[in-house]
Structures are given as C-alpha cells and as structure tokens.
C-alpha cells in the first residue's frame, strides 16, 4: 500500500512523495497521469524507515518560513527528522516561503533542507523541541551559494575620467 504524502514541483517537473507499506519514502515523477517511482530522495545518512503512525493521536505542526537575504524562498524542499534521524515529515515552501511540517510526537526534531540552487541552507540540521499541542513558527535562512566580489574604482575628484593606481583598500567582514 502506498500513501501519497506530498506533491510538489521542482525545476518545472512535478513530483510526489510517497510513503509505502514498508515505511519508505520515495520520490516520483508524474508520467501520463500515473506516478512512477524513479528515485529515493532521502539523504543516505538518514534512516529511510518511518515508524507506524497512529493517526488517532494529535498531529502537531511546525510552520517554517524559509528566506534568503532579501526574499522568501519558494520551492525549497524541507524535511523534519526526529532525534533518531528518521524523517517524519516533509514539504515544499510556497510562494511566501512557508511550509507546514506535521509531526506526531512531542520531542526533539531537526530541520533539513535539500539543495535549492543557487541557495543553500544556513542552519542545516537545526534542532528544535516540538509539542503537538503547541504549534510553532520558525524562520529558516538560506544564503546564496555563489561567492560575491567587491570592485572598487578610485578616481581623481576633479577629473573623474582619471583613474588612480596604487591606492590601497582594506576589507573586513563584520559579524
């Protein structure tokens, strides 16, 4: 038996996240109205099995806001793992950078994000204590993967066309 856990779009392709009877998550690609399993998306370092979920229990939710330096980050793939490293929920951020991650037990969890080129998560594996009775909101920052540069041009104040060689500039990073 397979349970459709989530449907999301990544790089203009439609995918579904499926939980099967063995407790494994699979990512699928949609082909002619059917979902065909193509690849497993969970990182190798994490367990792929999930415990049996008792749906009679309270379901907690973590609302996550993903953002870059300036804007909300949409289409970011987010995973929630429990203290044992088991994936308990996942989702894709919407156009406001928001994603709601469900969980079933109180406890300690970690937040993971798939690469969302050109952005990378700043706080990969961020730990958080969650309570099913207490919905929580959290911000999850990303930053540009590419490195930037600073170009300074020095000129004569009275004759701006005349550039000045042999000037020295010193750069610090501010924390």
């Amino acid at each position: 038996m397979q349970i459709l856990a989530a449907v999301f779009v990544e790089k203009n392709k439609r995918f579904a996240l499926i939980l099967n009877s063995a407790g494994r998550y699979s990512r699928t690609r949609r082909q002619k109205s059917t979902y065909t399993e193509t690849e497993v998306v969970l990182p190798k370092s994490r367990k792929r099995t999930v415990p049996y979920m008792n749906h009679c229990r309270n379901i907690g939710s973590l609302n996550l806001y993903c953002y870059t330096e300036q804007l909300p980050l949409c289409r970011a793939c987010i995973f929630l793992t429990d203290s044992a490293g088991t994936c308990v929920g996942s989702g894709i951020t919407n156009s406001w950078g928001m994603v709601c991650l469900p969980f079933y037990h109180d406890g300690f969890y970690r937040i993971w994000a798939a690469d969302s080129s050109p952005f990378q998560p700043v706080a990969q594996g961020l730990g958080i204590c969650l309570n099913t009775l207490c919905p929580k909101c959290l911000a999850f920052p990303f930053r540009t993967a590419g490195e930037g540069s600073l170009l300074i041009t020095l000129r004569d104040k009275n004759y701006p066309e005349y550039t000045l060689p042999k000037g020295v500039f010193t750069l610090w990073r501010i924390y």
Partner: protein
Amino acid sequence: MADILIGSALTNENGLAAFTGLPPGTYKYVQASAPTGYTLDPTEYTITISTATPVEEDHTNSPTETGTITVTKHVAGFPNFVLPGATFKLADSNDKPLVSVSSPTDSNGAISFPNVMTITGTPQTYHLTEVAAPAGYEPNTTEFNVEVDVGQTAEQNVPNTPSVQGALDITLTDANYTEYGLQGSNYNLFLVTP
C-alpha cells in the same frame, strides 16, 4: 564576534581594486593609503554581499596640492585674434587622459583646467593636444608639455593657421595721373569682429 580582516587590495592602472571569493555577509572597507600626490579618504564604508553579482563602488581622492593650466587659442601671427570653439585633450606624462575632450574655448579663446595635481618640488608635467580646431582653421598637431607648479597657473598658447589664407593688395596712385603709383605710404589693417 570581532570583525575579521579579509585582506588588502591595490588599485591597478585602471584604478580598480578587487576583492573576490566573498561569502554572503556584511563587510566594511577603508582606504589604507592614497596614491602619491593625493589625500586619503578616511571614510569607512559598509557593504552587504548577498549574491554572486559583484558589488561595484566608486570613490575619489582629492589632490593634496594643485595648480592650474590655462590654454589660449589665437590665429598664428595674430596674438590678439583669439579663437573660440577649439577643444583639447589633457593627459598626464604617461598620456593617460584627465580629460579626453574638453569643452570648447570660450569667446576669449581660452579654456582653463583648474586643480590639477602637482607636488611641491616636483612639478607635474601634463600633455596638451588639440582635439578639434575652430572651424576654418588647420588643426594644430603639436603635443605641448605643460609643467605645473603648486598654486601657479601655467599658460599655454596654441595658435592655428587659417585653412584658407586670403590677401589684400592696395594700389595708391596720383589722383590726377592714375598711372603714377605713389610710394612710401602706410596702411593699417583692422579685423572687424562680428
């Protein structure tokens, strides 16, 4: 956490100093030393790097000491016949331009280049060349070397020869005997300006 020194960069011949490979974050930079003859800008500038697109900044230094160059344009052989409408290029001793094309000489046939950098005891030499001659005059292709002292005005005359040179012949004769030319009389010629 204290600020972390990333490094220093020297401006090249094009006045460009580059810091590359910077992770996103907030940075500050300051000018550590100025080129010879210029005064350092002590301002501390803050920038934010958030993308791979280079952050481009433009800064200026003022000359510590200056002089002035004044150029006067006139007709060759007629110092008082000044010529408006000529443009010039002013460059340093390595022919690197301060001004590629100046504004035209004014109605007095003059143009001034104030506040050019010079150094006490080491007068700076600038190259002055005509870019465009006034209409009706041949270009003056001479490159003039103008030496500028601190606080002084260096004057440079740049004459032009007319493209078309005319002539005036006057014949003076006896009023009663027009065959008889009169020798030894002087005429004065004036230019009537519009």
